[in-house]
C-alpha cells in the first residue's frame, strides 16, 4: 500500500457520536498514528466490543470486528494467535473493558499477547444512557465525575477501579494514559503502543459530554509525564498510578519480555521430532 495521509483512513460511515464526544479525538489521533506508522489497512484488524466507543472500527479503513459486549480481548487474542503477522488493535469503553470484560484482561496481559488495547474511559456507560461504570467516581471523591446515575439515583456504593494499577499488577508490558483533549501526545502514545512488542494498554480519558462531562475536572488534573519518569521502573509506575489526585499522561511502564507468539514459536522445537514432519499418517499409525 502507498503511504496514506491521516484523513485517508476515514471510511464513508459517519460517526454516530454526539457533537463534542471525546471519541472523535480518539479516532482522529488514531488516523494520525496509523499514517505515521504507515499502517497497511489490509494487514490490520481493529477489534471492539459494544458501546459508543466500540463503534470506532466502523470509521477506520482496516479490517474490523465489532464483536459482542466485553469479548474484545479474547477475539483479538485469537486473531493474533492465528496470524502473528497482523497488526491487531483492541478498543472499547470502560464498561466493555472493566465490567463485563474484566475477566479477560489479566490473562491477555500475563500472556503478553502482542496487541494494543485502547480503552476509551468516560467514567460512564454512554451508549445505554448514562449508567454507572466501574470507573464512575465515588461519593468519597475517588475517581472522576461522581454523579448520581440512573442506576445509582440515591448514591454510589462502589469505589472506582484504578485501571493503570490493575494493568501493571497483571503484568502488562506497556501501560500508558492519554487524553482526548490532548490529541498530539495521544497519537504519540498510540504509536509507541503499537510499536511495542507485547501487550500494550492505553487508557484514554475521553469524556462523554452528554452523561458525564468531565473536561474541566480533567483539564485541572492532568500532568504530562514527559521525560520526568523512568518507564522501566515498575515501582515508580505503580506510585504514579496510585496518585489518584493527578492524571499523569504518557507512558507509565514499558518492558520487553517474550510475547505469546515468541513462546509459541519456541515450542515447535520441543515437540516430538517424528511428528514435526506433520505427517498425519505416521501419527495415526501409532494407534495400531
Amino acid at each position, binding site marked *: 500500500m502507498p503511504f496514506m495521509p491521516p484523513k485517508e483512513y476515514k471510511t464513508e460511515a459517519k460517526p454516530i457520536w454526539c457533537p463534542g464526544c471525546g471519541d472523535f479525538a480518539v479516532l482522529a489521533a488514531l488516523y494520525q498514528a496509523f499514517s505515521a506508522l504507515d499502517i497497511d489497512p489490509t494487514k490490520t484488524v481493529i477489534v471492539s466490543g459494544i458501546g459508543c466507543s466500540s463503534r470506532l472500527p*466502523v470509521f477506520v479503513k482496516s479490517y474490523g470486528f465489532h464483536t459482542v459486549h466485553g469479548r474484545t480481548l479474547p477475539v483479538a487474542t485469537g486473531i*493474533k*494467535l492465528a496470524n502473528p503477522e497482523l497488526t491487531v488493535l483492541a478498543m472499547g469503553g470502560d464498561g466493555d473493558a472493566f465490567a463485563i470484560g474484566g475477566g479477560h484482561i489479566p490473562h491477555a496481559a500475563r500472556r503478553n499477547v502482542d496487541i494494543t488495547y485502547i480503552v476509551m474511559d468516560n467514567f460512564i456507560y454512554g451508549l445505554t444512557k448514562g449508567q454507572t461504570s466501574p470507573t464512575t467516581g465515588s461519593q468519597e471523591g475517588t475517581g472522576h465525575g461522581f454523579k448520581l446515575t440512573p442506576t445509582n439515583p440515591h448514591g454510589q456504593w462502589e469505589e472506582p477501579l484504578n485501571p493503570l494499577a490493575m494493568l501493571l499488577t497483571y503484568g502488562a508490558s506497556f501501560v500508558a494514559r492519554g487524553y482526548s483533549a490532548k490529541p498530539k501526545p495521544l497519537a504519540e502514545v498510540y504509536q509507541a503502543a503499537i510499536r511495542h512488542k507485547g501487550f500494550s494498554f492505553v487508557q484514554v480519558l475521553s469524556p462523554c459530554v452528554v452523561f458525564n462531562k468531565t473536561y474541566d475536572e480533567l483539564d485541572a488534573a492532568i500532568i504530562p509525564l514527559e521525560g520526568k519518569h523512568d518507564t522501566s521502573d515498575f515501582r515508580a509506575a505503580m506510585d504514579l498510578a496510585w496518585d489518584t489526585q493527578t492524571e499523569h499522561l504518557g507512558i507509565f511502564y514499558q518492558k520487553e519480555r517474550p510475547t505469546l507468539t515468541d513462546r509459541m514459536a519456541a515450542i515447535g522445537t520441543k515437540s516430538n521430532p517424528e511428528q514435526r514432519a506433520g505427517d498425519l499418517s505416521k501419527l495415526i*499409525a501409532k*494407534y495400531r
Partner: protein
Amino acid sequence: MDELHHIVNDVIVRFAGDGGEGVITTGEFFGLALARSGLDIFKVTSLPAEIKGGPAMIQVRVGEEPPKSQGSFLDILVCFNNEVYHLNKADLKPNGVLIYDPDCEIDETNADATKIEIPLTEIAKKEAGGALSKNMVALGAIGGLLDIEAELFEPLVHARWGKKGEKVIGNNLAALRLGRDFAQNLKHLVPFRIQRHPHKGAQVIQLGGNDAIALGSIASGLSVFAGYPITPASTILEKLAVMLPSFGGKVMQVEDEIAALGCVLGASYAGYKAATSTSGPGVSLMVEEIGLASMAEIPCVIFDAQRGGPSTGLPTKEEQSDLNLAIYGGHGDSPRIVLAPANVRDCFDLTIEAFNLSEMCQMPTLFLTDFYLAQAAATTPEPDLSSYEIINRLRPTAEDLKDYKRFKLTESGVSPMAKPYDDATFYIATGLEHNEIGNPDISPAAHRKMSDKRHQKLQTAIDYAEKKGTFARQYGDPEADIAVITWGSTEGAMQEAIDLAARQDLSVAQLHLLLLNPLPDQTIFEFIKNRKRIIVAELNYTGQLAQRLRAALNIQVESFTKCTGQPFTPYELLKQIMFYHGWDTGQSEPVLSQIARVQKQRQAPVPAPGHEGQDAAMAGAVAVSRI
C-alpha cells in the same frame, strides 16, 4: 486351541477393581492384545470419584466383527476385590464365568456361574514384587484360561514400562507368567474359547472417541484450538495440545469457555480453521458468541462432549441432552449446523464433515459427542486420508475484490469471505444487523434479506448432505411397520436390538441421523412414509430429537427415552421393540410428567438390580464425580 470348547465370536469381559489396583491397565492390555491379533474390540471404562482409589471398571467386548455397543450382560467378570464384586455381580450372565480374588465373598447372585478363584494379591505379593503386579497376574490368568498366546501380552509390558527399568519389567513379566501358570490347571472350567483368525486385510487401529476427534481435526486442517478443561471433553484439548503444534497449529488453554470461543472466532475471522471443545456447561456459556458467529457468518467448530445434565449434573455419566441447546441456544434466530457421531469412527469421519459444513456455510457447527464415546475405544480400519474431501471457505476472487461485499446476497446464501493480510481489502464484521458491505443497517429490508441469507445456507448444507448420503444411515427391515429413529451413540445398541428382534421375527426399521440441524428432510420424509409407528429413542428426559422432528417437519412421532445417566443396552431396547409388537414385557408404568404425558412419551424404567439390571450395578461401579 482346545477342541473341547465352544468357539465363540462375541465375548464381553469386565475387569473390576480399585483405581489404585491398576485394573484399567489389565483391560487395556487385554483389548490391545486381542486387537493386534486381528479381532475387533470395543472398550468402555468407568473411573472412580476419588482421584486415588475407589471402584473402577473396564469392559472389553471382543469379536470377529466390530461390536456395535458395550453389550448387555457379561460373559466373564474378573473381580479384584470384594467391594467391586458386589457392585458388578449382577451384570454377569447366569451361566457366565466369574474370576475372582479370594477376598471376594461370592453369593447366590452367581449361583449358576462358573466360579474360578485365583489368589491375585497373594501371587503378586509373594512372587512378583508386590501387590502392584496384581493386575498382570489377572491378565496372565485370563490369558491362560482362554488359551491366548502369552506372546501377545509380553510386548505390551515392555512398551509400557520400558523406561522404568529391568526390575519393574521383570516383576510384571513374572506376574503375567505366574497368573498364566496358575490358570493352566483351571482352564477346562471355562466352557468356551474366543474365535481367532489371521489378521484382516486393512490395517486396524484402536482409537478413543476423543483421539478420533483430535486426529480428524488435524486432518481437516485445524489451525487454532482454544479450550477450557471440562469432563469428558478435556482430553480433546489435551491431545491436540500434544499433537497440533507439530502440524503448525496452535493450542491454548484460556481463562474460560467464553474466552475459548472468542479466540476461535478471532482466529477464524483471520482466515484460519479454528475449534474448541467443551461439555454442556461450557456450551451454555458460549451461547452469546454462537449467535455472534451465526450473525457475522464466521465458521467454527464446537465439540460438545455431552454428560448428564442439567447444571453440573452428572459429570461422568452418559446423556444426550444438549440437542435443544445446540439447536436453539441463542437469542433471536441464529442458524447453525448440528452433528452427532454414533461411534468412534464417526468421531474421525464426521469431524471432517463438521469442519467442511462450517467452512462451506460460514456458520458455527456444534458436534455433539458424549461421555460414552469420550471414554470408549474401538478398533477401526486405518483411515485412507486421501479419500476424504476437505472443504475450505469461499474466498473473494480478484473480480470480487474490485467492489468487495463481504455479505453479498447470493443464491446459496454464501458469500466470499476475505482473509486479512492475504486479501487486499478490508471489511467490518459485526453482530449488528448489516448491509452487504457489513456496515450496520437495521432497516426492515436489511433484516429480512439478511435473515433469508443466513437461513438459506441451511438449505445449502442439506443439499450437500443429501448428495453425499453419509449423514443418515438405515438399518433393519426397510419394509417394517415399526420404525425407530436414533441419534448419537444409541445407534449401535439399537442395531443389536434389531438383530435380536429379527431372530424372533419381529421386524423394525431404523433411521440413524448424524445431521441434526438442518434436518435432511427428504430422507426423513421418505423413511417415515407408510409406517404404522415411528418412535424416536434417545437418552434424555424430554425427548429432544422427537420434539425437534415434530417442530421442524410438522410431523407426528412418538418418543421413548431413558434418563438415568446410563446408555441403552441392546437388551432393554429389544424389550421395547417386543412391546411395540404387542408383547407384554412387564414394562413398569412410565412416569408421566406433564411434558412426558403430552408427548405420549415412554420412558425406560429405572433399572432394578438383578440380571436385567446391568445399569444399576454399573452405576455403583461408576459412581464417580470428576467435573
